[in-house]
């Protein structure tokens, strides 16, 4: 029984990383109406930057903390540049132009990463303080996973406060509902778009930096995270951060349980959940009907 609990908790910790990444994707999707394929690239670049920063600063706590600050900021700057220099130029075109553009960015970034960091698998050490495990009903549970859950909850709370209490957040929610109307009320829409895209990229970067010490870092992690993130956005509802939290936890836990029950079918559970939501509640669990 404790095995199941531990497995669920590790699913939750994986779900939290997924939530952080997908919350950025859902905000971008909701406000800019862009299906940002490059979101996975942001995640991957942040993971590699984390690798470099921890190598340079040593594997201890300072290097870990520095990477948590630096990697998301690098990716946020990359996101801001992409939005201002590329996406903005085609924002009035059909949606598939934006799809093609963000897809092209994934290819360019993947090759860029190959050129800078190579094809080898890299790993980032966890700082010593977080290397051990805590005991839950006598079973060990990695301390680092506890940290992931805590940070995920903090980000969820911070995003919620931002969306509910600040003027930027309220404007953002209004733009998710009716972007044209927000512009007609004098909101500087191009600036809002850049802000949201940058925030979204920062979140993808934070997810990448946090995930770096968990698995291995290599070309291809951009694809796996983007598929899961889109699944989260669709399950939770486009533009809904709370939806992204629910969706990410559902996927994280389903996957963790799936691995226990039928390891080879684990990935299928995500798509079964996705199909179920699309059939029963196409606007997503917490989404609004269009």
């Amino acid at each position, binding site marked *: 029984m404790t095995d199941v609990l531990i497995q669920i908790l590790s699913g939750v910790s994986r779900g939290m990383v997924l939530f952080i990444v997908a919350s950025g994707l859902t905000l971008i999707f909701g406000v800019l109406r862009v299906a940002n394929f490059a979101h996975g690239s942001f995640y991957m670049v942040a993971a590699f930057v984390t690798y470099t920063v921890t190598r340079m600063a040593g594997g201890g706590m300072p290097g870990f903390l520095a990477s948590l600050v630096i990697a998301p900021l690098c990716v946020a700057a990359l996101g801001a540049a992409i939005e201002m220099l590329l996406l903005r130029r085609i924002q009035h075109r059909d949606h598939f132009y934006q799809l093609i553009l963000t897809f092209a960015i994934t290819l360019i970034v993947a090759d860029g990463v190959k050129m800078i960091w190579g094809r080898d698998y890299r790993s980032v050490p966890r700082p010593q303080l977080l290397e051990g495990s805590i005991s839950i009903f006598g079973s060990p549970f990695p301390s680092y996973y506890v940290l992931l859950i805590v940070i995920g909850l903090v980000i969820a709370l911070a995003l919620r406060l931002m969306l509910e209490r600040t*003027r930027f957040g*309220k*404007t953002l*929610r*209004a733009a998710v*509902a*009716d972007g*044209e*109307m*927000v*512009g*007609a*009320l*004098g*909101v*500087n*829409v*191009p600036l809002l778009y850049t802000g949201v895209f940058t925030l979204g990229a920062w979140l993808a970067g934070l997810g990448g930096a946090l995930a770096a010490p968990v698995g291995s870092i290599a070309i291809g992690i951009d694809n796996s995270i983007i598929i899961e993130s889109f699944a989260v956005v669709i399950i939770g509802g486009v533009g809904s951060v709370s939806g992204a939290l629910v969706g990410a936890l559902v996927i994280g836990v389903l996957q963790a349980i799936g691995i226990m029950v039928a390891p080879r079918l684990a990935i299928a559970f995500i798509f079964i959940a996705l199909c179920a939501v699309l059939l029963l509640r196409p606007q997503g669990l917490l989404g*609004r009907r269009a």
Partner: protein
Amino acid sequence: MLECDRLHTYYGAAHVLFAVSLNVAPGTAACILGRNGVGKSTTLRTVMGLTPPREGSILFKGRRIDGLPAYKVARMGLGYVPEDRRVFAELSVEDNLLVAERQAEGGFGWTAERAFEVFPALQEFRTRLAGFLSGGQQQMLTIARALMGNPSMLLLDEPTEGLSPVMVKTLEEAILSLKREGLTMLVAAQDMHFAAKVADHLYVMNRGAIVYEGQRADMERDAAVIQSHLVV
């Protein structure tokens, strides 16, 4: 205040406005009358910069605004009240106003409190989500929201459409009181009686073009002509 000169607007390949010219003098209200689908909303959207004209020019306070994005037009002092209300349903009444709060050039110093004086019903529901308001209350909110941008001129798209007679009267009075405060207005409407109460100057549209233009004083004399354009 507003001078539109021979505007031609398209939705994709469809030509929807044909050489629409109109003028609204400061402090006056002009009304565009017409049936559904004759181009009233498109005219207002064109002025606002939401559907830019392909030909023609728009001057607002003597400056060209055609081609500017809507947010810049709004910041110059043009307030927009769209058809179908379009309140932000998941935001409270107060937050709908907050999102729109902005200093525009030469405005009238509007605050949420003053907007509530014009629409006391909104004050009562200030913390309620806009999606849970009645149609009439939502319409009040869209007007109050436009006022929060401190406009010198309002574009109102069928502000009394689909509302109960009592609510229509309330809104008419509110609109007239705003006019008395010096706000310039361009109002799209289908109802001649509404136009007769509010408008100093009247335009009638049919099939994307202005087919009649006159002063309020001419309305009675020309009633038959105006009506002929309004019947289906």
